């Protein structure tokens, strides 16, 4: 009970990290001396009280934290600071930040954002005027997190109040060290690129200011946007010289930064600048389709079928992408592999092969270089076809495994370890999970039942075949839909195995639902509000089943659970080939008329959605590898097992 409440309180803390418009809390106001002593009066940023309060906002979400932890423990030898002291430095920071924070006291004292190495980077930008050399020193290290904490510690000791806080903090925070590590992992993935870049730039600005060269520029930008002082706006990486148009440009960048403050999990394809950038990196050349669907501009809408020949001819000249990954990408593009599990397994096996063939370039770290490589592969795969949620989870698992590799392993050992980890993921989280699901679900099939299923889900197929094998007497209704007609393949396999089947299209659902006593559905993903994300049409089936009070059973492996919340089918979806719904394959003349007339019609847009979301109230039960659970328990599984999942 208590732990649950504790977990609930965390988002509050996170809120402090993300939101720039924070109200000064009473606690802050009651400690004027502290806030003043913390901020440097000479800084141009500390004109208003609100800019004082901004410093806690700089708490960066803890993406790097665990990285930092691991690297600090690994790089213990070259750094001349004993590990314990480094820890204390971290803890000092945590207390320092904690004192600002209204929600902080016991909870944040052990929470990761405050103990993050990056905090020090940020505060460095505030203290930058005094400590230029420490900043220089830190920037000379590849990741200077801990060094900065050291340097930050020095000015802290100036104030008495802080000293007391340190003393009391040390004993407490040392004991909670392991706890911290644990929590930080759970929060790890939440930082965005934008925030990291913002920090980097803020740091750079401070450095420049300290050198006395760019102080004017910093002032300008500081004045231009006093409210936005958190993110020291700066011209981009190209290093544009400070001209008269600087303030204009900074305003634009600030605008952009603010937009990117919102943590993004997916690229929004209506964001022109980002799409341009992505295109430069792209391996697959996509031409955007002419008649785009308005509502779904944020999703990639490309012309179909013209990339494949070029890509397949490129296969002999590729250098950046491993051939196995390339093959899988092409298969995804061509639609040769469908089904989430199959796609995920194919991807993981390709990664396995790629890792096997990988050798670390000289002067590079295996973990870092390999992560970058994998990132490249993943973006290639995304270009071929957007990733499913489950693939995203699998990739996250792999990246986590790479980052957790022990430092003392040799290259071949590390590679073997990773390959066996991937193999285990496939075995345990996918194949074995399916077996467990079959065992559970088959108990819900009784003699004389009529089971309705939609499309083709491999788990549901396994369940039906197994139930038939153990001699249950039941009938199957397969509901299918255009354009993919996946149900036909399922129908063929079931009929050859001797099951009694009925095949119909989704148009007849309200008629055929009368016969059904159970609805079994597969899933692409299940979100933590219990929303089912599955093949388009599933939602319709579930709603009709609910109206006929037929129980809807969703079969889904736990690795497909996602901690996000989905409310509609618009935000996150995938668009299929629009021609597929325009063409009716059996009628040649229909095809003819389409190509003639409709393609050029500006007022006609074909929308071929791939997925839809089913609200949790239409789902009676979710069968997963942890047993049969109600949809309300998805967050419990995600909470309890995500950690373990990562540790696997």
């Amino acid at each position, binding site marked *: 009970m208590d732990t649950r409440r504790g977990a609930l309180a965390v988002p509050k803390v996170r809120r402090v990290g993300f939101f720039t418009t924070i109200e000064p809390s009473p606690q802050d106001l009651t400690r004027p001396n502290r806030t003043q002593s913390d901020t440097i009066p000479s800084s141009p940023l500390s004109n208003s009280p609100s800019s004082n309060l901004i410093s806690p906002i700089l708490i960066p979400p803890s993406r790097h934290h665990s990285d930092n932890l691991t690297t600090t423990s690994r790089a213990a030898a070259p750094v001349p600071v004993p590990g314990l002291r480094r820890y204390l430095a971290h803890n000092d920071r945590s207390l320092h930040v904690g004192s600002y924070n209204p929600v902080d006291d016991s909870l944040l004292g052990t929470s990761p954002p405050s103990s993050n190495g990056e905090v020090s980077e940020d505060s460095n930008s505030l203290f930058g005027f005094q400590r230029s050399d420490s900043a220089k020193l830190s920037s000379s290290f590849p990741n200077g997190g801990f060094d900065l904490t050291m340097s930050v510690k020095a000015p802290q000791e100036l104030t008495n109040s802080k000293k007391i806080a340190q003393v009391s903090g040390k004993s407490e925070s040392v004991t909670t060290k392991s706890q911290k590590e644990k929590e930080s992992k759970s929060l790890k993935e939440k930082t965005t690129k934008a925030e990291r870049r913002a920090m980097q730039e803020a740091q750079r600005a401070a450095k420049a200011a300290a050198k006395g060269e760019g102080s004017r520029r910093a002032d300008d930008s500081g004045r231009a946007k006093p409210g936005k002082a958190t993110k020291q706006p700066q011209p981009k990486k190209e290093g544009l010289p400070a001209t008269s148009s600087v303030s204009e440009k900074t305003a634009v960048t600030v605008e952009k930064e603010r937009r990117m403050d919102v943590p993004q999990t997916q690229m929004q394809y209506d964001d022109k600048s980002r799409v341009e950038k992505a295109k430069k990196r792209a391996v697959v050349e996509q031409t955007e389709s002419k008649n785009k669907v308005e509502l779904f501009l944020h999703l990639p809408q490309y012309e179909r079928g013209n990339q494949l020949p070029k890509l397949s001819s490129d296969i002999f000249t590729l250098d950046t992408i491993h051939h196995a990954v390339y093959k899988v990408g092409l298969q995804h593009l061509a639609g040769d592999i469908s089904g989430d599990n199959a796609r995920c397994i194919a991807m993981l096996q390709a990664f396995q092969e790629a890792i096997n063939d990988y050798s670390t370039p000289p002067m590079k770290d295996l973990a870092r270089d390999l992560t970058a490589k994998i990132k490249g592969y993943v973006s290639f795969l995304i270009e071929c076809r957007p990733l499913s949620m489950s693939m995203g989870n699998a990739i996250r698992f792999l990246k986590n495994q790479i980052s957790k590799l022990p430092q003392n392993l040799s290259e071949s050992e590390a590679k073997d370890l990773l390959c066996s980890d991937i193999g285990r993921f496939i075995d345990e989280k996918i194949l074995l999970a399916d077996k467990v699901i079959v065992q559970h679900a088959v108990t*819900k099939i009784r003699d004389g039942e009529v089971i309705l299923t939609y499309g083709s889900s491999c788990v549901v197929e396994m369940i039906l075949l197994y139930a038939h094998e153990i001699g249950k007497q039941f009938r199957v209704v397969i509901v299918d839909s255009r354009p993919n007609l996946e149900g036909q393949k399922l129908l063929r396999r079931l009929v050859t195995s001797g099951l009694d089947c009925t095949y119909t299209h989704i148009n007849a659902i309200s008629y055929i639902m009368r016969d059904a006593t159970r609805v079994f559905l597969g899933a692409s993903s299940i979100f933590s509000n219990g929303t089912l994300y599955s093949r388009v049409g599933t939602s319709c089936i579930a709603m009709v089943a609910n109206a006929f009070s037929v129980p809807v059973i969703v079969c889904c492996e736990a690795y497909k659970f996602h901690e996000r919340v989905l409310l509609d089918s618009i935000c996150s979806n995938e668009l299929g080939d629009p021609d597929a719904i325009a063409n009716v394959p059996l009628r040649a003349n229909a095809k003819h008329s389409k190509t003639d007339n409709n393609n050029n019609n500006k007022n006609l847009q074909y929308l071929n959605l791939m997925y839809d979301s089913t609200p949790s109230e239409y789902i009676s039960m979710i069968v997963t590898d942890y*047993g049969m659970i109600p949809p309300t328990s998805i967050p419990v599984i995600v909470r309890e097992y995500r950690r373990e999942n990562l540790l696997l």
Partner: protein
Amino acid sequence: MWRRSASFILDKHDNNKPISITQSIDSPPPPESSSMAEETNQNPNPNPISAYYQTRAAHHGIVTSDWLEQAQAAVRRYPDHDLMVSERPFSVIEEFDSWRQQPDLAEAVAAIRALAAVIRSSEAKTMMELEIELKKASDTLKAWDTTSISLTAGCDLFMRYVTRTSALEFEDFNSAKSRVLGRAEKFGEISCKARKIIAMLSQDFIFDGCTILVHGFSRVVFEILKTAAQNKKLFRVLCTEGRPDKTGVLLANELAKLDVPVKLLIDSAVAYSMDEVDMVFVGADGVVESGGVINMMGTYQIALVAHSMNKPVYVAAESYKFARLYPLDQKDLEPALRPIDFGVPVPPKVEVERSARDYTPPQYLTLLFTDLGVLTPSVVSDELIQLYL
């Protein structure tokens, strides 16, 4: 539904001899249909009638003393069973039976006590041996009555609670054993106190001048009402009759002794009197993973009526009744049958629904009062996941 009825009845008619229901409780159980007999094959208790409900009947008999006769009859009904028990030096069932005789002790608690006794009298030399012995005992208990959800759930929870300790890492077997025993006793104690805790928790929900509808005789609900009466709360209780064993009448009887104003309804008058009801209190045979409850026949109906009239439905259940079951509909349960006396002879061709309990889905329940706290139905699954996985 229309489509199932025709063939369904015909099929049933073919392989099912019509059962005469006019017999009294004391008479031997009717010859059962073939499917039922197969199911209970390995069951040491050859009686197709749910033992759980027999125990309940026996307890009520002792509580009110005019049922004593029937209770004794119920016990007398297993002469062969007693014989089998006496052959062995120590038997869980025997121990369980002796605990079960106490009217205030729930079946699951009796099972927990019996399992604790197994540990105490065990002659195992290693932890593994002890664990296996315990597992065997709990399996025997579960097999003794497969229809009792709380018995199964209680045994499972006990096994979880007791064997999930660091005791197994102890070097000395005796200290480890005493540790396990300590945990077992503690678990038994927690289970015993559960009812009191629930009664305490629920007091905030009973306000002066409220009208409470109760169904059947649940010992937890009775405890709640008793505590409320002792706290000088002013409330009125509507008791359903609770056919066929008239448990509602018993509850009305007991409440009247406490000077609580009681009104007795027939089961079919629930909807009629729902508008004057402020809240519904029911007990539970078992709380399932979806957060729904399995309880005496009629609970579902009452919950539906209360839901449609926007009255809160509160379920009082001890946490040892949390079971890892997930029924999808009413028929998706192990059937618990019991004889029903209709008062008039039932024609031989008429089929009789003899199921003793139904399943109430979670969307019709408002809150669950358990010894873990006052929970919403969805939390049950959370607790179960944390307990079992």
